[in-house]
């Protein structure tokens, strides 16, 4: 096959590969890291119940306050008012496809919302919940 033919085939393959494959790839990698460090089985249900929990000191904030309870809807930053694209991969296929980006936001948002980093267990639970939406 010619070089350009190979290129076309690669592009077609990339387009045909739906983004949930990338999402699964990123999430599965993270989950296996978490398990390797000692986390147990993950639960989307636990992720959902933690979504609305307030655990920070002196500021009553939860994930849902910016990202809303319905992950298929866009959210809004409670202080800056900046719109936040929907988190649910079902409506926003680009979500959960980049492991480094996921970890960056876990670090920022867990510390900002709960005043501490989330545990591997919590992060895995959140990921399963978000992926299911």
């Amino acid at each position, binding site marked *: 096959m010619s070089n350009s033919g190979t290129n076309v085939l690669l592009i077609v393959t990339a387009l045909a590969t739906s983004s949930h494959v990338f999402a699964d790839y990123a999430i599965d990698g993270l989950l296996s890291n978490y398990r390797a460090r000692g986390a147990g089985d993950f639960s989307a249900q636990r992720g959902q119940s933690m979504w609305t929990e307030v655990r920070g000191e002196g*500021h009553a904030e939860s994930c849902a306050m910016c990202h809303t309870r319905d992950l298929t809807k866009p959210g809004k*930053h409670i*202080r*800056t*008012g*900046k719109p936040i694209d929907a988190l649910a991969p079902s409506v926003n296929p680009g979500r959960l496809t980049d492991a480094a980006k996921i970890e*960056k936001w876990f*670090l*920022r*948002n867990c*510390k*900002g919302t709960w005043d501490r980093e989330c545990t591997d267990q919590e992060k895995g639970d959140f990921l399963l919940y978000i992926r299911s939406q």
Partner: protein
Amino acid sequence: MNTKYLNVASLLTALMFLSLFVFADDDHRWGFRGADVEPVNDAKYASECGACHFAYQPGLLPARSWKELMKSLDNHFGENAELDTAANDRITGYLTENAADNAKTWLSKRIMKSIRRAENPLRIIDLPIIAHEHDEIPARLYRDNPEVGSLSNCAACHQRADAGLYDEHTAVIPGFGNWDD
């Protein structure tokens, strides 16, 4: 009175008359001009910082302020906005190189003139020139306005804020309309 004094007097009168037009608008600007501050042209800054808030142009603060802000991202006005070292270094470089003290545009120069050397302002809205431009707007139009929320939300009203344009002719307060004093 000799002719020389007459000429000076008429020149002064003419200047005073002209100044009425030049300064009639509280915007203190006239004629053709470019952007008030250079628009953001760094994709990393735009994506990392612009994810949570309007990506304020580097020309809105002096370099010393940006350095201070970038050193304390773990408590960024009450939020955690931590970046890894590589991203932090790169964005700090972009912000300081293009900061108000290094910028040539109208607003950047005015900002530098409005602060003292010893001052290290961290909030753009508290810069004297910026605060002054907003001091006549009642709080109900921003704080109590769900589409605005705070004066730090530049782009809520400044329709061309992304292009570095902040004149009041392009400012439209949601639910209120054009703000032109």
